[in-house]
C-alpha cells in the first residue's frame, strides 16, 4: 500500500463527503418488489452505525440540512481524516450521542437505482441484545460486522446465532476497519475462514465476506480497489442489490383472525392478514381450534370484492355458513392444517433481566392468539463451544430449547415452514413486558416425544454410544429434535 494512493482515496472521499445529495433520482427505482429488509449486527464499536451512515451518505439519502446538522454535531468528534461522524446519522437518542454507542434499533430507508431497502441498525452492546433481536426478527439478510483488528468475539457469535435462529439465511460478513489493519489480505482471509466455520455450524451456507472501511467508504458503495487490489469481489451495495427475499411460507392457507366485523344485518366478516398460502372463493377451510369446516364465500376489501388473496394481504373473509369464529382463531386450508395441541417444543431467546424461570406461567402471543403457557427450559446454547448443554433456566440473552405446556389448544406451524405462524412472544404476567421471542420446532406428544414424523418416513442410523451425546448437542440435532428418535441398545436389538 503506498501512502500516495491512500491520500488520493481520502481526498476523493472527502470531496464526496462535502457534496451530499447531488442531482440523483434514487427514489424513481423500480418499485416492483417490496423493499429488502436487512440488519447490521456484531460486537460493540465494530462500526455498524458508521457503516449505515456511510451507506446513506453515499447513496445520497442524506439531505443538505441533515448534512449541515451532522457537520455541526460532529465538531470536536472529528477523526483524523476530517470526516464527519457518520454514526450520528443513526444514533439519534441523546444518551447514544453522549455515550457514543447505539442503544436501540434505528430504522432507515434508502434506495439505489435498482432496489429499495429498509435497514435496521442494531446495538452491539450485550445489554441491548433484546433490541438486536427486534431488528433481526423481520430481516431478510444480516450484515455482520467484525473489527479487522479484533476478529470474531463472543458477541459476534451471539448475533450470528440469533440471526440464524430467527431464520436469516443470507449473511454478509463485513470485515471492517480494514484501514486500521494495513489493508492486510491475510487478516481478512483468516477472519472469513473463521466465520464460515461458525456459519456452517449454524446451517448458513450463504456468506459473502467483504473487506471494508465503513468510515472511509471503501467497498461500501465505492470500490476500494486502490488500497485493496487483492479484493476482486462485490461491494456491499452490489451484494445487497442481488440478495434474495425470504420466501416465507411453505404451508397452506392461514388466516389468524384479528377481528370479527359485524357492521350491519347479514354481514359477518373475519379480518386478518393472510399468513400463508392463498385463498379464493369456493375454497374449503377449517376453523381452528373448533375444527368446524366451511367454504369461502367472498374476499372483501375496501377497493374490490376480490377473486383471490395471497400471503401478506390484509383481508376480510366471508364464509358460506354461520360458524362460531372469534379473535385468536385460525382459518386454515382444509387439506393442509397447522399442528394443534397442548404441548410444543420451541427455541427461545430470553430478553429480560430475569431470564426465563422454569415452571413459571407466562402469556404467549402468536398472531392474534394469546394464551397462558408454562415454560420449561431443557437446554441452553454455550456460545463459546457452540454446544447445547442441559439447562433448566435461561439467563438474560440466553438462547435455549424449551418445552411449552398450554392449558388450552395451541395452533402453530414450525418456524422453519412458516415464520408468521411459527413465531411467538412471551409476556411476563406481572410486568407485562415482552420477555422472550420464540420459534416453534414442533409438537410434543404425551409421552414427551415428538411426533413430527410418522414411522413410515423414517430411516435408522446407529452411532457408538460415546458419540451419541456429542451428536445430540449439535445445532443440527437440536434443530431436528422433533424428527429424531433416540433408542437404547436393547430397543435396537429387539427390533
Amino acid at each position, binding site marked *: 500500500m503506498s501512502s500516495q494512493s491512500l491520500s488520493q482515496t481520502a481526498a476523493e472521499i472527502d470531496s464526496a463527503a462535502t457534496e451530499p*445529495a447531488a*442531482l440523483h433520482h434514487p*427514489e*424513481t427505482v423500480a*418499485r*416492483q*418488489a417490496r423493499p429488502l429488509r436487512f440488519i447490521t449486527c456484531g460486537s460493540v464499536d465494530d462500526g455498524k452505525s458508521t457503516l449505515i451512515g456511510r451507506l446513506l451518505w453515499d447513496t445520497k439519502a442524506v*439531505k*443538505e*440540512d*441533515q448534512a449541515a*446538522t451532522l457537520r*455541526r454535531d460532529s465538531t470536536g468528534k472529528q477523526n483524523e481524516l476530517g470526516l464527519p461522524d457518520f454514526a450520528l*446519522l443513526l*444514533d*439519534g437518542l*441523546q*444518551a447514544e450521542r453522549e455515550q457514543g454507542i447505539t*442503544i*436501540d434499533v*434505528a*430504522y*432507515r*430507508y434508502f434506495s439505489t437505482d435498482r432496489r*429499495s431497502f*429498509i435497514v435496521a441498525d442494531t446495538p452491539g452492546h450485550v445489554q441491548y441484545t*433484546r433490541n438486536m*433481536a*427486534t431488528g433481526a426478527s*423481520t430481516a431478510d439478510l444480516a450484515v455482520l460486522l467484525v473489527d479487522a483488528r479484533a476478529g470474531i468475539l463472543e458477541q459476534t457469535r451471539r448475533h450470528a446465532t440469533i440471526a440464524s435462529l430467527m431464520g436469516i439465511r443470507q449473511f454478509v460478513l463485513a470485515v471492517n476497519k480494514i484501514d486500521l489493519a494495513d489493508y492486510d489480505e491475510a487478516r481478512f482471509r483468516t477472519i472469513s475462514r473463521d466465520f464460515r466455520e461458525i456459519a456452517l455450524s449454524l446451517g448458513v451456507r450463504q456468506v459473502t465476506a467483504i473487506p471494508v472501511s465503513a468510515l472511509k467508504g471503501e467497498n461500501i458503495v465505492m470500490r476500494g480497489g486502490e488500497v485493496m487490489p487483492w479484493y476482486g469481489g462485490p461491494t456491499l451495495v452490489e451484494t445487497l442489490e442481488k440478495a434474495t427475499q425470504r420466501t416465507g411460507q411453505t404451508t397452506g392457507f392461514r388466516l389468524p383472525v*384479528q*377481528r370479527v*366485523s359485524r*357492521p*350491519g344485518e347479514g*354481514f359477518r366478516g373475519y*379480518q*386478518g*392478514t393472510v399468513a400463508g398460502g392463498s385463498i379464493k372463493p369456493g375454497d374449503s377451510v377449517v376453523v381452528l381450534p373448533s375444527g368446524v369446516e366451511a367454504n369461502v364465500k*367472498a374476499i372483501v376489501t*375496501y*377497493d*374490490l*370484492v376480490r377473486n383471490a388473496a395471497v400471503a*401478506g*394481504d*390484509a383481508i376480510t373473509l366471508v364464509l358460506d355458513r354461520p360458524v362460531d369464529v372469534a*379473535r385468536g382463531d385460525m382459518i386454515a386450508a382444509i387439506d393442509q392444517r397447522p399442528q394443534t395441541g397442548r404441548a410444543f417444543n420451541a427455541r427461545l431467546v430470553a430478553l429480560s433481566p430475569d431470564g426465563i424461570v422454569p415452571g413459571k406461567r407466562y*402469556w404467549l*402471543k*402468536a398472531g392474534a392468539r394469546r394464551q397462558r403457557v408454562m415454560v420449561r427450559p431443557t437446554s441452553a446454547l454455550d456460545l463459546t463451544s457452540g454446544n447445547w448443554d442441559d439447562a433448566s433456566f435461561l439467563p438474560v440473552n440466553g438462547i435455549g430449547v424449551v418445552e411449552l405446556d398450554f392449558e388450552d389448544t395451541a395452533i402453530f406451524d414450525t418456524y422453519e415452514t412458516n415464520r*408468521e405462524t411459527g*413465531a*411467538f*412472544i412471551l*409476556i411476563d404476567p406481572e410486568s*407485562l*413486558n*415482552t420477555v422472550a*421471542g420464540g420459534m416453534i420446532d414442533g409438537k410434543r406428544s404425551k409421552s414427551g416425544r415428538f411426533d413430527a414424523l410418522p414411522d413410515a418416513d423414517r430411516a435408522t442410523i446407529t452411532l457408538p454410544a460415546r458419540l451419541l451425546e456429542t451428536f445430540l448437542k449439535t445445532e443440527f440435532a437440536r434443530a431436528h429434535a422433533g424428527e429424531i428418535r433416540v433408542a437404547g441398545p436393547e430397543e435396537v436389538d429387539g427390533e
Partner: protein
Amino acid sequence: MNVIEHGRGKPPLDPHLKALENEAIHIFREVAAEFERPVMLYSIGKDSSVLLHLALKAFHPGKLPFPLVHIDTGWKFPEMIAFRDQVVARHGLDLIAHTNPEGLRDNVTPFSHGSARYTDIMKTQALKQALDIGRYDAAFGGARRDEEASRAKERIYSFRTPDHAWDPRNQRPELWSIHNGMIHPGESVRAFPLSNWTEVDIWRYIQAERIELVPLYFAERRKVVERDGMLILAEDKRLELLPDEQVREEMVRFRTLGCFPLTGAVRSQATTLDEVIEELEIATVSERQGRAIDRDQSGSMEKKKREGYF
C-alpha cells in the same frame, strides 16, 4: 348488506406500497381489537389524510370503531379547519376538537411565548389533556420513522407511562409483527401504522389512491413574509409585521402543515401531484427543514416526545 367497492377502475398498487398498506391495516386492526378505548390523532396534514384512508380500509365495510381527536391550537391555517370539517362530514366521523383552555385563557401565542413554550402548552399539554379526558388507552398517530432521528428509534407500539412519557432507553422488544398490547391501568400506547413509510411513499400513495388534501400542499401565489429564514404565510391579521418586513406575493407551497406562524413555505411551481412528486425526488433538503419547532437543537424532538408529544 351491500358491500361498496371504492376501487373500481383504479389500477392496483405497486408491491412496495401494497406491502406498506397491508402492514398499516394489520396494526389498525390489532390495536382496535386489543385496546378498550382507542382514538386516532388527526392533524389534517398529508400523513393524517393517509392514516385516515388506511383506517377506513382496515374496518371496511364497517365504520371506524374509534373517534378522532384534533388538537386545535387556534393558529392552524384556516384552510385546514375548513378541510377538516368537510372530511368529517363526508365520512360521518366522530371528531373531537380540543384546545388547551388554560393556554386560551392566558393568551398563549407563538409570538408572546416563543415557539418552544407555545408548543409545549398548546400542543403537548393539550394532547395530554385530551387523552386524559377521553381515558384513551391507545392513540394512533401518523408519525414516520424517516422524519427525524429519534423517531427512527421508536417502536410501532410506543409505550407511554401514565404521564404520557416515552422512555427511549427502555422500549419493549417488538418482534416480527406480534405486538404486545398488554398494559397496566393508566398506561397507554401510541401506535404508528405509518412507521415504515417515507415522504415519497406518502405522496405516491396519495396519488395512487386519489386521496384529497388541503390545497396548501400545492403551489399557488400566496402572500408571504420572510422571517428567521422561513417564508411565513401573511394572510392572518394576527401576524404583526416587524419594521423591516415586507409582504410579497410568491408561488409557494407547504411540505408539512402545522401552526401557520411556525411553518415555513417553500418556493415551488408544483401545482399538481405529479409535479410535487417530481420536485420531491430531486429535493436536496428534508421536509422538516421548514419547521421552526424542530430546528431549535438536535434532540429537541426526543425531548418533546419524552414529555408526551407525539
